[in-house]
């Protein structure tokens, strides 16, 4: 059941979605068992930014019907802290490491890409482009031209696979996918969370400290499937599909719709070992079609 994705050898097609599994914290909670039964075939880090961020004020979570709305705000130690404290630990994981990075300008993204380019511990980079470019005010991943300019700037900086993580909050995801391909993306991942909001039942004020948040989980699965399908019709790049995967059949659906790998996000919150479970269910042939391997 092993496969190759952008030249990376993987044991199975199930990885984690960025920001939904902290391997270092999970080791504190589960001890050595985590490494013995590591649920994913590659580990994707939570988004790393240039500067440290403490994230949004709580509350950060709101439960949806079949889903979750989060406004975490990308807390992280910043590039330097990540390189110093996290990377050495993550390099010990039994699977390849994909580092997810985000910048608020193409210069910031370039700096991040450059910093990871020489790191052998890092198998690939995932670019989170769901944030506004402070220079143009546009969400980098919502506008094909904006995204092209970004990729043209950073693509030459590394030989590593550059996975572009698309935002689902667009009218034409295929157009963005084509722009990413033309500007040299090695692969695409989708979907990121859908913009949503909740009000405090008592006060009527926004519940989330960050006012709006991102919806994930089963509630967005059909939307993810449609977007993966639309992107697959548009480009031949490898695709990491995600959004609401809970079971092998959901992964099989995404693969059927065009994904090469499938990431499990919110479901890991319900079942920390969801990744292995989904991989096993997929392998047991809950999948009507298996087009990998």
């Amino acid at each position: 059941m092993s496969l190759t994705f952008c030249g990376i050898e993987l044991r199975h097609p199930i990885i984690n979605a960025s920001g939904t599994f902290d391997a270092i914290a999970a080791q504190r909670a589960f001890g050595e068992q985590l490494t013995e039964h590591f649920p994913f075939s590659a580990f994707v880090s939570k988004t790393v930014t240039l500067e440290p961020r403490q994230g949004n004020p709580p509350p950060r979570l709101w439960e949806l019907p079949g889903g979750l709305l989060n406004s975490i705000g990308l807390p992280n130690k910043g590039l330097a802290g990540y390189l110093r404290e996290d990377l050495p630990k993550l390099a010990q994981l039994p699977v390849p490491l994909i580092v997810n990075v985000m910048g608020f300008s193409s210069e910031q993204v370039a700096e991040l890409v450059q910093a990871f380019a020489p790191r052998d511990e890092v198998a690939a980079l995932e670019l989170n482009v769901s944030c506004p470019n402070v220079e143009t005010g546009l969400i980098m991943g919502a506008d094909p031209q904006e995204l092209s300019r970004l990729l043209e700037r950073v693509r030459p900086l590394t030989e590593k696979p550059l996975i572009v993580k698309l935002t689902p909050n667009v009218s034409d995801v295929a157009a963005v996918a084509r722009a990413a391909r033309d500007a040299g993306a090695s692969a695409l991942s989708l979907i990121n969370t859908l913009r949503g909001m909740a009000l405090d039942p008592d006060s009527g004020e926004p519940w989330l400290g960050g006012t709006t948040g991102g919806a994930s989980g089963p509630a967005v699965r059909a939307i993810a499937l449609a977007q993966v399908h639309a992107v697959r019709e548009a480009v031949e790049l490898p695709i990491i599909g995600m959004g609401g995967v809970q079971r092998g059949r959901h992964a099989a659906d995404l693969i059927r719709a065009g994904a090469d790998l499938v990431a499990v996000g919110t479901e890991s919150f319900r079942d920390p070992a969801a990744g292995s479970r989904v991989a096993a269910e997929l392998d047991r042939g809950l999948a009507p079609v298996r087009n990998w391997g």
Partner: protein
Amino acid sequence: MTAERVHAPFGRRAATVLAREQHGAYVVVRCEDPAGPRPQAGQFYMLSAAERWGGGEDERPFLPRAFSVLRAPAAGRELHFLIEDVGPGTRRLCELAPGDQLQLVGPLGIGWAPPRRDRTPVLVGGGVGIAPLAILQDQLDKPHTTLLGFRDGAHAAGAALLRNARVATDDGSTGHSGLVTELLRETLREDSQVEVYACGPPAMLEAVRSLCERTGTPGQLALESGMACGFGACFGCVVATREGYVRLCVDGPVLDAARLSTALTPGAGH
């Protein structure tokens, strides 16, 4: 008393409900957890019903819910949880009957630190926050004081789950009429060589914290916040400490009172 975080087995596992007992406004669910270790007092579990977790108010619950372990008798494999019905998740759990299956992940988090040699533990609980004090009592091998506060008589029925507790109720129906923190203030006045173990609603914890601060009393507070995962994956459960945000599920739920400038955590629920 175990001083260290007990690791959880990796993943979610099934546990069979052995009994459901009503204690006034609370329900105690006892289950059998053959595959899990004995938890540290103050640790918690993420629970969900194996069947029909969903379809309640607003088409919820969806995520598992956090519960302190109430009791984990050293002999055997039982885990007891104390549950108050405050929404769709707790409602579903309160309905569980013997033979039903729970899904659980745990024990999680860091529980109570063992008592200091030179101080008398004072356990302060409010409402359903008495849960982690019961297992603490079970494991404390030195004399201690237990002060519990409840809204009313129906809730004060929960006091029977602990030993030798002094009770306060808001409506005066049982014990002291007023806040449990009034009893704490009294205790601190009588004996300065105490340390506090507290769990309860934010307002109570904040009163305890500020009493500890003002009197220089060491205190441990078991906090609550909305949790999606319980094992550090989502970064959703942060509370503000003097050092910045910490994830309550991996760095708590028990925090040293001195680390907080307030225990009034937004969105903690109740």
